[in-house]
């Protein structure tokens, strides 16, 4: 005979009313902008949080993007302009120079605290004329150009970055350090556009879902000291070379050595840190195409310059990628050296400022070396994982619900992922992920419709709960809280994913794992052995 609970099957579909109005895209990388635009177009209110003073993530800093060598800012800025000034821009609340400081709640009802640093420039009145910059007496190494040039304490991130307004770096500004300086305010033609009364503020927003697009970082090349990075001049990373190629970069787009000479022989070292069991075992998937792009741009800018690729393997996954490869391969100035690993190279100083790359017994000389580091999950990925209680995978990236079929959902319901924070990827893939996550959010949070709960969530019988809190310790989703008044643990059915670990851990049998109850499983065992 079946135990009683099986007689009455519990409802498989249950719904709760939820906050549908707001979605939050966290950090304004290109994927975040794309998602914000799509969500706003669908009439949703979006809170966009960007760490930096401009929107567009990393590719907006690349003058050319592979495979067609289109201009990165030109491809992205229409989306950014839509976010800032488009017909649906009133649905998007943009927070620049901001970070999520705290996140609580669950799918349908998150509460997020956003810490906003002051820009000291009023975005609604500044006309972006740049009159403040020459007046500013303080210069320092420009982080956007990887320290290869200087910026003023009040300056643009780079020309063309949106929104088109400078920002004051509080660490560099003399006035903010208490010195008697008012040079920028005096030079500014718009009264009040520069506003030193702005203060850091913390704002709180309620949102239904969260999209994380915080991006990744490059592998730290100084971890491979044999490559000479940081010690030898003209041994640069892909990001530094990207800025050298950019018209808004430190050399105005001229490829030149640190001493101003023009390089004739350039080496590009692939797979720095990648496909390396001791470092990043994975292939970052974008560096080969980036290296081929560099080769093309060098050939355009420096006629006759020799480019030698040190390769472990060549990866060309996109349908348009082989074209660029064929073009580069067909050039007489291109050479290839097959290497076992970038870690097996040794780069040292040669004569006349040259760099000597030794591989095995062979020495070759170059004027400049470009290192192509692996893409890694950076500190912001770890911090975001902590804030939203997300898991990271073996490679350190934010873990998706399922790598093949649900790569834009995290393991926490209502938290979506897009871009390099989930896995190394190119712009096209990040944009596709943004659209995919947007689709997920729009179909999960429909105005007027209640949120459907997982049928298999756990419930606590308050009468039997002894208050030991064992369940709180084992729940991976912070779905269980202890209600002091009721003297019982309580499961939030929105957060509960139905793994049933709490039911197994409960020493008094007070927790029932719906549709996987003890009675049901006992009956299955009896049936299986009957």
């Amino acid at each position, binding site marked *: 005979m079946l135990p009683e609970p099986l007689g009455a099957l519990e409802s498989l579909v249950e719904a709760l009313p939820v906050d549908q109005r707001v979605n939050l895209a966290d950090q304004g990388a290109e994927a975040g902008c794309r998602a914000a635009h799509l969500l706003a177009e669908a009439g949703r209110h979006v809170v966009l949080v960007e760490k930096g003073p401009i929107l567009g993530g990393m590719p907006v800093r690349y003058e050319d993007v592979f495979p067609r060598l289109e201009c990165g800012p030109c491809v992205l800025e229409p989306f950014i302009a839509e976010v800032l000034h488009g017909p649906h821009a009133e649905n998007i609340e943009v927070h620049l120079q901001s970070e999520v400081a705290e996140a609580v709640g669950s799918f349908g009802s998150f509460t997020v605290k956003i810490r906003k640093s002051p820009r000291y420039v009023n975005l609604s009145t500044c006309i972006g004329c740049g009159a403040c910059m020459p007046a500013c007496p303080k210069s320092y190494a420009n982080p956007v150009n990887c320290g290869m040039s200087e910026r003023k304490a009040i300056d643009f991130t780079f020309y063309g970055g949106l929104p088109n307004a400078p920002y004051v770096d509080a660490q560099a500004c003399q006035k903010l350090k208490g010195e008697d300086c008012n040079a920028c305010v005096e030079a500014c033609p718009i009264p009040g556009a520069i506003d030193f009364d702005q203060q850091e503020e913390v704002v709180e927003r309620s949102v239904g879902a969260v999209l994380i697009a915080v991006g990744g970082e490059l592998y730290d090349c100084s971890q491979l000291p044999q490559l000479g990075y940081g010690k030898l001049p003209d041994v640069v990373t892909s990001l530094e070379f990207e800025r050298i190629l950019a018209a808004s970069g430190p050399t105005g787009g001229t490829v030149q050595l640190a001493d101003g000479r023009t390089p004739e022989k350039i080496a590009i070292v692939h797979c720095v840190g990648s496909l390396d069991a001791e470092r990043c075992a994975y292939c970052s998937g974008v560096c080969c195409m980036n290296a081929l792009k560099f080769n093309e741009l060098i050939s355009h800018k420096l006629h006759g310059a020799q480019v030698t690729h040190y390769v472990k393997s060549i990866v060309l996954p996109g349908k348009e990628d082989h074209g660029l490869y064929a073009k580069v391969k067909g050039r007489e100035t291109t050479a290839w050296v097959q290497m076992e690993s970038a870690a097996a190279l040794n780069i040292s100083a040669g004569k006349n400022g040259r760099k000597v790359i030794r591989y095995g017994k062979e020495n070759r000389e170059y004027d400049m070396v470009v290192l192509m580091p692996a893409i890694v999950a950076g500190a912001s990925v770890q911090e975001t994982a902590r804030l939203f209680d997300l*898991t990271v995978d073996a490679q350190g990236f934010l873990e998706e619900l399922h790598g093949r079929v649900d790569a834009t959902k995290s393991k926490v319901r209502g938290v979506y992922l897009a871009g390099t924070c989930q896995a190394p990827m190119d712009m096209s893939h990040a944009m596709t992920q943004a659209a995919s996550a947007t689709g997920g959010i729009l179909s999960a949070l429909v105005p007027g419709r209640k949120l459907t709960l997982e049928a*298999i969530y756990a419930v606590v019988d308050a009468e039997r709960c002894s208050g030991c809190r064992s369940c709180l310790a*084992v729940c991976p989703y912070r779905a269980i809280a202890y209600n002091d008044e009721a003297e019982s643990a309580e499961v939030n059915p929105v957060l509960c994913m139905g*793994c049933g*670990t709490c039911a197994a851990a409960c020493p008094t049998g007070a927790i029932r794992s719906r549709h996987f109850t*003890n009675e049901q499983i006992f009956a299955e065992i009896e049936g*299986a*052995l009957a």
Partner: protein
Amino acid sequence: MSSQAHIKTQPVQAPAQPTVGFEPRIVGFLCNWCSYAGADKAGAAQTAYPPNVHVVRVMCTGRIDPQFVLKAFDEGADGVLILGCHPGDCHYKEQNLRMIQRHRLFLKYLRQLGYEEERCRLDFVSAAEGEKFAQVVGEMVDTIKRLGPLSRGRSQGQ
């Protein structure tokens, strides 16, 4: 474990000679995401494996209460096979690690009851490992055949 467990098991000794023609009955608790899919894969690939394991699906090995294993022994199982995601691959973040912890403790309890530890095996089978599923099932059946049937207190008239 809750008071709902109806444990009728008694300390036993395995028979000195394995029973001739003995076909063990084994209950397999498989997690929905990795091992159940792995078993599915073995089936889809028509991989041959012994039919002795009766599968009970749970969402996660973290759901497996030690009473489930005792219940299986009590209902006539000669062995229990628990299969979950590999450590680090859990669909529910890390609940398979909770299972590993519980299994270690449970084996101690099993020893106290006088049962051989091998009668309750924990292993990891991913959704891709149809072959491994068949291999683990084969090994488990061989092990239980070697140990012989589990004699129970109940069958001794209690």
